[in-house]
C-alpha cells in the first residue's frame, strides 16, 4: 500500500535518498537477511526433530501437523506485539520466534513428505545390502528426500522474507522498518525502497535456492531424458 497521492510537493521518488541513506539501506538489507536466515535455520532444526518424531512414531504425525498448522494461522502482527513486552522490541527473539513458528508448517510437511517419497524397495535394498540404519538414512533416504526438503526451504525462505517486513511494526524487520518509517513520515521514497528491495531479495533467494537444489539433485533432471 504505497500512498501514491502525496499532498506535499515532494517528487514521488527521490533518487538522492538511495545515495545519501545507502548505509541505512544496507544495514536494513543485512538485518532482513539475518532475520530470515536465523528463522529458517531455527525452523529447520525444530522441523527436523518434529518430522523425525512423526516418522518414527506414526501416531504423532497428526498431532504434529495439526499443531504446526495452528501456529501458521496465528496473526503475525499479534504475535510480534505479544512478544515485544516479554523480550523487548529490539530483542532478536521477539522477531525470530514468530518467524520461526511460521516456517514449521511448510518445513515439517515437506520433510515428512520427502522421507515418505523414498520408495519402499529402495529402503529394502539398502537394508538387504547390510547398510546400517544410520548409513541408510544419511546416504539413501536423505538424498532422495532432499528435492522436497529443499523445495520446502525455498518456500519457507521466500515467505519469511515477506513476513520479516511485518516485524517493522516493532521497529525491527530490516527493510520493513524502511517501509513503516516512510509510511509514518508520509515520505514515499523509503517505503518504495523497502518494498522493492524486499521483493528483489525474495526473488534472488528463490533463484539461488532453486539453483542450489538443482545442483544438489542432478539425478532428478537427467532422469528419463
Amino acid at each position, binding site marked *: 500500500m504505497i500512498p501514491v497521492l502525496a499532498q506535499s510537493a515532494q517528487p514521488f521518488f527521490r533518487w538522492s535518498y538511495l545515495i545519501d541513506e545507502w548505509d541505512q539501506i544496507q544495514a536494513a538489507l543485512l538485518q532482513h537477511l539475518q532475520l530470515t536466515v536465523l528463522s529458517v535455520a531455527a525452523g529447520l532444526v525444530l522441523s527436523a526433530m518434529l518430522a523425525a518424531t512423526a516418522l518414527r512414531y506414526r501416531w504423532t504425525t497428526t498431532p504434529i501437523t495439526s499443531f504446526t498448522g495452528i501456529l501458521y494461522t496465528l496473526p503475525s502482527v499479534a504475535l510480534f506485539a505479544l512478544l515485544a513486552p516479554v523480550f523487548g522490541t529490539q530483542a532478536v527473539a521477539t522477531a525470530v520466534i514468530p518467524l520461526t513458528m511460521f516456517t514449521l508448517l511448510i518445513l515439517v510437511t515437506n520433510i515428512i513428505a520427502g522421507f515418505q517419497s523414498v*520408495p*519402499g524397495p529402495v529402503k*529394502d535394498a539398502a537394508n*538387504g545390502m*547390510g*547398510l546400517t540404519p544410520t548409513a541408510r538414512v544419511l546416504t539413501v533416504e536423505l538424498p532422495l528426500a532432499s528435492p522436497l526438503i529443499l523445495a520446502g526451504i525455498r518456500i519457507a525462505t521466500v515467505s519469511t522474507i515477506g513476513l520479516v517486513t511485518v516485524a517493522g511494526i516493532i521497529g525491527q524487520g530490516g527493510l520493513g522498518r524502511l517501509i513503516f518509517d516512510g509510511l509514518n513520515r508520509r515520505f514515499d521514497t523509503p517505503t518504495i525502497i523497502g518494498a522493492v528491495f524486499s521483493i528483489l531479495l525474495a526473488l534472488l533467494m528463490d533463484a539461488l535456492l532453486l539453483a542450489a537444489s538443482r545442483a544438489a539433485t542432478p*539425478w532428478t533432471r*537427467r*532422469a528419463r*531424458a
Partner: protein
Amino acid sequence: MEESYTTAIRLHGVTKQFDGASAPAVDALDLEVPAGSIVALIGPSGCGKTTTLRMINRLIEPTSGRIEINGVDALEQPAVELRRDIGYVIQQVGLFPHRTIAQNIATVPRTLGWDNDRIRERTAGLVELVGLDHAMLDRYPDELSGGQQQRVGVARALAADPPVLLMDEPFGAVDPIVRGSLQNELMDLQQQVHKTIVLVTHDIDEALKLADRIALMNVGGVLEQFASPDELLRDPANEFVERFVGEDRVMKRLQLATVADLPFHQGPVVAASATPVEAREVMRASGSAWVGLTDRGAFLGWVHGPDVHDDGPLTDAPRSLPAAQVGRDSTLRRAMEIIMTSRTSVAVVDDGGRFGGVITLEQIRAGLDQGPEVIAA
C-alpha cells in the same frame, strides 16, 4: 536323503506368524540348499516365498525355527554383517535413483571399505559379466530400460562376491525375450561363479530351466514338494503339484533332458570297409531296414537294406545323407522332432564332428521311464 553335498543354507522348522494374521505365512518349513546349487522357491501368490527369502537375510525375523548359513546360526549373527555376505536381488530392483550405475554396483564394496582402484576394477568386470555396456556406468538408473536395470540389480548383488545369493523374481519385470536371455546369462554366470542361489519365481518354466532343486510351496507356507526338476515332473507328490507343473509334463521333461543324458549306442552302423554280409547281419540283429556307414569316425550316410548287393563294396550303394543329426547337448525334445521327421526313424548323434551313436524313440521312452538316474537334469 544322501549327504554327498555340503549344505550352504539349512532351514529347520522355520515359522513366521505375522502380528494380527490368523494363519502363519510360513509354517514349519524345512529346506536345504546345497552349496553351489540353485534352489527355486515357487508357488501361488501369497504362499510365503518372499517371506522365506527375507528370513534368510533377516529382513524378517522368524517367529520360531533355526536358520543356518554355512553351518553358522544366522540368528546369532549381527544382521548387518550377515547381509553383507548375502547378495540380495529384490523383486522391484530397488536401485538407488540418486546414484549412478557405477555407484549402485559399488554399494557393498564401499561399505566394506575397498579402495577405489579395486572398486573400479570390480565394477568394470561385473558390467561385462551381466552383459551391460560400459557407457552406462555413469548414467542414473532412470536412464536405463527395465531389463538393463535388472542386470544392474544382479551386478550390485554380486559386487562383493558373496557366496550366497537371494533373488526375488529377478526377471519378473521384463518381456519374455529379454527374460530368456537374462536366464541364459544367469546359467552362464553360475557356470563361472558357482554361487549358492535361492531364486523366487512365479514361473514354473523358469524354475525348471534354472534350478537344481525346486521347492514348491502352497498357501500358508506349506512345502508340497522339494525335488529336482525331473523328479517333480516325473513323480509329482500330490494333485496340487501335478496341477501346478501343468499338463505337458512329458514335454517339459523332454525339454529339460539332453541327448547326453541318454545311454545312446552305436546302432545299426558298420565301417564303410565292412562286407555286405556283415552289414546285413547288423541290420538283422537290430531289426533295422537301414545300415549306417562310418569312415574313421565320420558318418557317411544311411544305406537302405535292398540296396546292399554282394557284388561290390558298401560304398557303391546309394546313400541318404544324415540330415537327421543332433548334438550331445540338444534337448530330447529336439531329438524327438528330428526322429519324427527322419525316414530312418533314428537321429545320429554328432559328437563334436564325430559319429557319436544313434538314438531312437524307444530309447527316449525308456529314458523317461527310468527317471533321474538316466535323465539327470
